[in-house]
């Protein structure tokens, strides 16, 4: 090994060791634990697929996965649909010298504490909250909006609209207006130019943002816990419940492995367009 190589390894080694010890090893331990089972309150190590069979065979467990996927897909689609026009308006309609300020303002609530942000939505959506007061003034409601899936979706969407606005905006400002002009010179209508030129060019930004949204959303415990009420559980809530109430680490591990598998599938589905390095 040359001096150069030794130096290179020496520089990379600490980070690699840290990742191996505190990321890879814990994951392997969790994977091994997911094949163990519980007898009473004791973990019995072994190799059985019992936890996985239960996770997919028992509707009370599978329902959590289904809920999580439904909520996450809804949030991802909704966030993209809301964020795209916002990013486009900032990029195209706001005068250049105000753009950074407009963008900064659009993501400022991003910096409120995550726990507090969900709590704030509970205040807004609650039965005595601001929104229901507003509805009351025009003779509507009150509606039960807090402690529902609706509240969870709103809480998530709020957070991810900010995130997506950022990634889509970054993509849009790199677009030269010449593309649109060229398409129109060649006789395309505004709509056609949009669908066939602008949209495909911003796809990497959209897909990257959507993937990050999907990953963060499906793994989040706080937002559904504060806003979702007790009627239904998401997968992270079920994981915490398994661990907390029964101390059932093997089941919690199996559910976590399933959660990771879902994210991996999502990654595979959009790998073509992903530009994680552009974040």
């Amino acid at each position, binding site marked *: 090994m040359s001096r*150069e*190589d030794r*130096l*290179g390894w*020496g*520089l*990379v080694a*600490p*980070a*690699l060791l*840290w*990742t191996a010890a*505190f*990321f*890879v*090893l*814990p*994951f392997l*331990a*969790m994977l091994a*634990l997911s094949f163990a089972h519980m007898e009473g309150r004791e973990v019995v190590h072994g190799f059985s697929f019992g936890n996985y069979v239960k996770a997919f065979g028992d509707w009370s467990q599978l329902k959590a996965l289904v809920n999580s996927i439904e909520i996450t897909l809804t949030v991802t689609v909704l966030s993209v649909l809301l964020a795209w*026009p*916002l990013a486009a308006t*900032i990029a195209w*309609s706001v005068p250049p010298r105000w753009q950074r300020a*407009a963008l*900064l303002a*659009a993501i*400022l609530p991003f*910096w*409120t*504490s*995550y*726990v*507090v942000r969900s*709590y*704030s939505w*509970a*205040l*807004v959506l*609650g039965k005595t*909250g*601001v929104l229901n*007061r507003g509805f009351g003034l025009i003779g509507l409601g009150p509606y039960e909006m807090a402690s529902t899936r609706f509240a969870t979706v709103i809480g998530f969407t*709020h957070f991810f*609209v900010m995130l997506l606005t950022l990634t889509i905006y970054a993509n849009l400002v790199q677009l030269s207006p010449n593309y649109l002009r060229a398409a129109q010179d060649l006789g395309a209508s505004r709509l056609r130019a949009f669908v066939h030129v602008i949209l495909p060019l911003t796809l990497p930004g959209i897909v990257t943002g959507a993937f990050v949204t999907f*990953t*963060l959303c499906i*793994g*989040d*415990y*706080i937002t559904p816990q504060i806003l979702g009420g007790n009627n239904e559980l998401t997968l992270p809530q079920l*994981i*915490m419940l398994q661990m907390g109430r029964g101390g059932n*680490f093997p089941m919690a*591990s199996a559910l*976590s492995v399933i*959660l*990771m598998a879902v994210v991996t599938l999502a990654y595979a589905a959009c790998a073509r367009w992903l530009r994680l*390095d552009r974040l």
Partner: protein
Amino acid sequence: MKRLSFLYLALAYAFIFLPVAVLVVFSFQDGRLPVPPFQGVTLKWYEKVLSDEGLMTALGHSALVAFGSSGVALALGFLAAHGLARVALPGSLLMRGLLIAPMTVSYLIIGLGLLTVFNQAGIKPSLVATGIGHVVINLPLCFAICFAAMGDHQKSAERAARDLGASEVQVLWHISAPMLAPALAAAFFLSVTFSWDEFIIAFLLTRFEVTLPVEIWSMLRSGLSPATNAIGSLVFLVSALVVIVLETLMRRKA
């Protein structure tokens, strides 16, 4: 068309700022509940929060964990980025992939994995355990930012220093780090904000000494109170100021 897009802009901002506005307004509520009607302005909830020992201790813990873990993450990430950018090692693509990998795994799983291993090794939940977890989530970020910032311009400066007899440590300290200062600062502060606000890993890996998000979480469980609004508003104010100051600084430079 123009009018329509500005209408949309206004609606979007209303949606984005609605919860923050409600949070801040009702932190001044002169009453027991942070919901309408607004009963008058008082600062007593801020007073209560600022003299709350549990919250202030948790605030200190959060700062400690945030700055400590970000420092470690930045050091590890910077060295690794330097090593991988400078020396063509076999399997460097694989190593980059491994270093970035934690970014795509949810914090819950990282926390649960660490808890499993720590349990088996007999390590008790603590602020250090939480800090270790926070380095895991911030290392990919620091590495990626540093790696992306290393350019050819910098490589030639490093080579020049080496030709003039500088040791590797001197090159790192006097050439690479100063040239990368903006990227290093960005990576550090981004890490601090992520660690500062992180809940689930801290929740799983602390017990008696908790961080601010965990303390706020336990406040929530005792019901709605303007005190929660007050601490939330304070956290928001501090973070927003940091962001605006950073933005103005970067702007002045550019």
